[in-house]
């Protein structure tokens, strides 16, 4: 793939941003529903796979699993338009959202060290997000 092909990919930027937002939202929602649902499943025996399968039939956990499957498919679509080295750091912004959701929805305790970590992830993700999203065979800015 040459520079002109890489340049042609520049027109896909709005779709890349839309897929990024969709993927991060689906993964956050999926993880939240899974965490919330698993806390309400009566008892999950750690070594028994049947109990995990039964847990999937809990409506909240089930919706969480569907959201995570859709997140996987969205990430595949994203990887068809953007570099892996772009997608990885930018989607790490999910850690920031997980910290906020953990704090606000699940009322978890988030330490100051963890807030500093999420701030660094945000800064790093913004920095990577400002580079060209597709560079295979071409040059990044």
């Amino acid at each position: 793939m040459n520079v002109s092909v890489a340049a042609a990919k520049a027109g896909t930027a709005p779709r890349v941003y839309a897929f990024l937002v969709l993927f991060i939202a689906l993964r956050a929602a999926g993880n939240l529903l899974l965490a919330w649902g698993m806390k309400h499943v009566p008892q999950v025996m750690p070594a028994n796979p049947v109990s995990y399968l039964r847990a999937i039939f809990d409506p909240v956990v089930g919706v969480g699993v569907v959201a995570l499957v859709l997140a996987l498919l969205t990430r595949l679509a994203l990887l068809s338009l953007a570099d892996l080295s772009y997608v990885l750091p930018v989607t790490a912004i999910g850690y920031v959202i997980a910290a906020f959701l953990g704090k606000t929805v699940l009322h978890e305790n988030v330490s100051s060290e963890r807030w500093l970590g999420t701030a660094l992830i945000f800064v790093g993700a913004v920095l990577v997000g400002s580079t060209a999203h597709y560079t295979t065979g071409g040059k990044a800015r």
Partner: protein
Amino acid sequence: MRWVLVAVMVVATVLSDLLQSHEMKRAGGQSVEPRGLMRLLRLIAQRRFLILAIACMAVSFFSFLALVQREPLSFAVPASAASFVLETVLAKLVLREHIGVRRAAGALIVLCGVVLVGG
């Protein structure tokens, strides 16, 4: 044992992401409306590298579960971040992505953040 689990998890994650990226770049631009999602599912069924990528993802997921059963999350999360470094290096070497100074610096800052989040 814990380092064996970390190694299995990191190798499986790296392999899964490299295979996904390679195959999806070959497949060209995809979409996520209902018809696009069906096309993606068909693509997974047709391409053995994508099936292998999902199998690797499952291995990575279960080794992470096994790791958090034995070790605190404050060890498991930063340890899993090792895949982040390896993947960025291999994206350059194997997938021929161009990693400029800004992207490399951003990825390193994110890595520090992930380690802190787990710590």
